[in-house]
């Protein structure tokens, strides 16, 4: 799960990290008071969406009067911001972050992730902030440090000194950073983060370290024990079909093609998409109905797939492991009846009681192409999608 920048900064502040004075508004008229409350004569206004690249898309602006803040808010609130990280429709802006303006002397990069290779939380730091860090990693790897945190010891002061050196901090800043590193680690662990990124971490004209941005991802598996984070969930930033699916424990990702897919198991679902592509078709979605494909879930899955107007045919691929295919066949029939499916459905059942399942589908009179061979089923679905 992703957080907005302002939510990330709230968490930063809670853990004692240096962030700018700020206010969040959802009504343009509140912008004037927000600027006055913050004080000063220069502010930064930032449209809040779950995507990077906002600056280039016009979603971030430096302003000199509260009126400009109102104007900016009127322009963006309720509109969709399209950046290179969003899809063509963009993300809905429903809040604006107003911050005091920071005078930047230097931009640095700092992040922390759970690294699969070392199986540790790893901090990544670079003196080259505010830019594409992948490019820095590729062209000047010596400018990046990867520092793994041992779960037993936690972050040690020597590690802060190692990172400080690569960041190019002076001794006062390094001292401040030695406080920041445990604070960031504490935040990471306390709230079950999977990613924390400050790009840029800046050195101000006054020589102080300051977190100018905050990007936070939370481990979805741990949301159950993060009540504070649950409150921050903003469904408007997610694909409505994906959120609807998640509510029913279905894993759904919408794609560009026209063959709706319903599969049990994430790996097989990806394999099925690959097979469709292999035979010249284009999957409309990834959908994992889970290990126990009950009638209720199959119905819900059909509804979600059919909500996509591009879908011309649905391919159901179920490998009945423990679940019996005859039960799944009945589930599919009931679901088709309930939802009122009017496009062709190709079903491939394999595994436990697959033959009985196929027979049930064949004798139902419903418009279903039942094949127990994935190759034939995929080819058929591709043919019907053309």
């Amino acid at each position, binding site marked *: 799960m992703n957080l907005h920048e302002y939510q990330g900064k709230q968490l930063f502040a809670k853990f004692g990290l240096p962030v700018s004075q700020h206010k969040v508004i959802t009504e343009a008229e509140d912008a004037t008071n927000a600027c006055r409350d913050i004080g000063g004569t220069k502010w930064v206004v930032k449209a809040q969406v779950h995507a990077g690249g906002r600056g280039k898309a016009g979603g971030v602006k430096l302003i000199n009067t509260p009126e400009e803040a109102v104007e900016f808010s009127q322009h963006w609130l309720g509109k969709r911001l399209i950046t290179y990280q969003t899809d063509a429709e963009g993300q809905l802006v429903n809040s604006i972050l107003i911050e005091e303006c920071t005078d930047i002397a230097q931009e640095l990069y700092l992040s922390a992730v759970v690294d699969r290779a070392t199986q540790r939380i790893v901090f990544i730091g670079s003196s080259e902030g505010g830019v594409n860090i992948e490019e820095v990693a590729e062209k000047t790897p010596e400018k990046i440090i990867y520092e793994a945190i041992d779960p037993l010891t936690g972050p040690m002061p020597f590690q802060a000194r190692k990172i400080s050196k690569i960041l190019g901090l002076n001794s006062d800043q390094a001292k401040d950073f030695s406080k920041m590193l445990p604070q960031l680690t504490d935040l990471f662990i306390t709230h079950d983060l999977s990613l924390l990124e400050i790009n840029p971490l800046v050195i101000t004209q006054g020589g102080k370290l300051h977190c100018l941005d905050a990007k936070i991802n939370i481990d979805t598996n741990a949301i159950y024990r993060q009540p504070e984070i649950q409150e921050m969930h903003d469904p408007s930033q997610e694909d409505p079909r994906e959120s609807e699916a998640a509510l029913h424990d279905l894993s759904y990702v919408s794609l560009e093609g026209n063959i709706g897919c319903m599969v049990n198991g994430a*790996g097989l679902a990806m394999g099925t998409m690959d097979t469709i592509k292999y035979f010249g078709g284009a999957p409309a979605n990834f959908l994992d109905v889970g290990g126990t494909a009950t009638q209720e879930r199959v119905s819900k899955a059909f509804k979600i797939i059919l909500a996509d107007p591009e879908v011309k045919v649905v391919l159901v691929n179920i490998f009945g492991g423990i679940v019996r295919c005859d039960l799944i066949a009945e589930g599919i029939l009931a679901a088709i009846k309930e939802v009122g499916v009017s496009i062709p459905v190709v079903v491939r059942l394999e595994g436990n009681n697959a033959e009985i399942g196929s027979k049930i589908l064949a004798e139902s009179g419903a418009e279903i192409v039942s094949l127990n061979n994935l190759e034939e089923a995929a080819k058929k679905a591709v043919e019907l999608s053309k």
Partner: protein
Amino acid sequence: MSILVDKNTRLLVQGFTGSQATLHSEQSIEYGTNIVGGVTPGKGGQTHLGAPVFNSVHDAMEAVQPNASIIFVPAPFCKDSILEAADAGIKLIICITEGVPTLDMLVVKKRIDELGIQLIGPNCPGVITPGAAKLGIMPGSIHMEGSVGIISRSGTLTYEAVKQTTDLGLGQSTCVGIGGDPIPGTSFIDVLKLFEADEQTKAIVMVGEIGGTAEEEAAEYIRDYVTKPVISYIAGQTAPAGKRMGHAGAIIAGGKGTAADKIKKLQECGVHIAENLLQIGAKAKEVLG
């Protein structure tokens, strides 16, 4: 011969009396697995599916000496259950449960490595040695005793590979589902090592997927240490970048971990690639001659 589990496996089921554990334990017993007991705190002294229930793994250890455990407890309690089994001295722990927080696994993994314990999973279908024992949720009926060792990050996709090798008469020595989470207890390399040393295994099928670099690391290990033929299929060749595809592990980030990257690396290291999941069995047959 086989790896990890065989007819001498004495299995303990943690979370024994729950509905999923009951369903899968019944099927495992039917398959011939020797379930010596189960653990459900507070239900010690009862009998379930003909086996004794204990309050703790330690109690079970004393009474019935299990040498493997399978975990079905809900995700919030897996960290505790795994560490309990480890503390009681069980050397093979299989965690079926999905949804275990990554930071829990970070700590668990460090501890089990220190203790020299083999943890399979979490979020995995388990381990089966056809004809000997089934420790997991896979359908027993599609398996056949044979010569192909199968390792996979996925569940149903593994069944697909199993079915194909069974249909072609090759069969399997052991099938290990290592799970799709970012921090798995056991890696491809751990299992490759075991298959390389196993006489019954003549070829190895490795089913991978997008995300992470586990397949790339395995590729280098295969190049340097594995003499048996390895066949690999990578799922997610058509997945768009940055989208999470169900498995926590299957995320393509920053241009790393794409199917194309993995396939290229595997090919460079001498691994036979099944371009499509339909070709896994045929490729194994071709390689075995």
